[in-house]
């Protein structure tokens, strides 16, 4: 029903707090899951030690990484990396969401919020881009719904498990 949908939407929030070491158990829900990682730049971290190392070095230490929180609990991540020198007017956004929360519009909402936060928080940023594997149609739809425009296909752009991928 419409009011239940509204309730669900109200629960979706990105906190502006940075990641914390105590988030480790929640973070493992998506970081240790191959079903999530297969779509992402990095491979899954299956052990608690590897996940902790990733949390410390890549999320907590990140210039801009935020948990996507549902009712205050991290269920995914949003990251933004600003370009340097002449590319400081642009940056790349990336996200990952725990598998059980796919298909509910959460990533789209989180992305819209993150885009607003980034344009507000980074006054030099005039462009946000994202790179997605060509067969990741779900993520392409998320980006389009959040207002991104598909620009072009980059062939053999990244390596994943020893193979090159074409990416939008």
């Amino acid at each position, binding site marked *: 029903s419409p009011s239940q949908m509204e309730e669900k939407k109200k629960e979706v929030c990105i906190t502006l707090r940075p990641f914390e070491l105590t988030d480790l158990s929640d973070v493992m829900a998506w970081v240790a899951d191959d079903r999530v990682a297969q779509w992402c730049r990095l491979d899954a971290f299956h052990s608690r030690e590897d996940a902790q190392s990733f949390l410390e070095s890549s999320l907590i230490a990140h210039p801009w990484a935020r948990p996507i929180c549902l009712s205050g609990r991290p269920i995914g991540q949003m990251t933004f990396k600003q370009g340097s020198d*002449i*590319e400081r007017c*642009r940056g790349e956004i990336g996200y990952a969401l725990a598998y059980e929360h796919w298909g509910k519009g959460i990533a789209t909402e989180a992305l819209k919020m993150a885009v607003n936060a980034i344009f507000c928080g980074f006054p030099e940023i005039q*462009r946000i881009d994202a790179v997605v594997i060509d067969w990741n149609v779900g993520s392409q739809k998320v980006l389009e719904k959040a207002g991104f425009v598909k620009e*072009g296909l980059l062939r053999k752009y*990244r*390596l994943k498990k020893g193979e*090159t991928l074409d990416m939008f």
Partner: protein
Amino acid sequence: RMAGEEGTGELSISFRPLEVEDADDVMAWKGDPRVAQFCRWDTYTCRDEAVAFIQNFAVHHEWCRAICVAGRPVGCISVTIGKDEARCRGLLKYELAHRCWGKGVATSAVRLAVPAVFREFLRLERIEAMVIPENKGSMRVLEKCGFLREVILRKYEVGEGRLWDVALF
């Protein structure tokens, strides 16, 4: 034509590493605003900047060569290999003294460089180049060398108080 040379009948080019002694020749293009504007770096105003460029960029770079005509450096060309998941791709950059524009020199340089880099870096599967669309000469160089224009990246760079679109080949 010697091995390692390439070019039109009029101008054949060769590659060698840049050396600090080349600083004056380097200033001929680094100090030229007509070159700087298309390359999006600030025009060099003194020889020390050329020396610093040679020492800090060219000498230690994984693949950087002086483009030489009749043995004299008239420009330079480099391919920067990506890290980690980006190590399958390399970014091609080249810059050439204005007096050598329109003579096929850049085309020869790119034609010579691309297979050399693919031979040297075995994991490399993609070479890309970024050029501002206003730089029609460079767009033609890349097209002549078999590069495909994939996309125009809008508002990708900032310089001289404005944003620039970049064509990615």
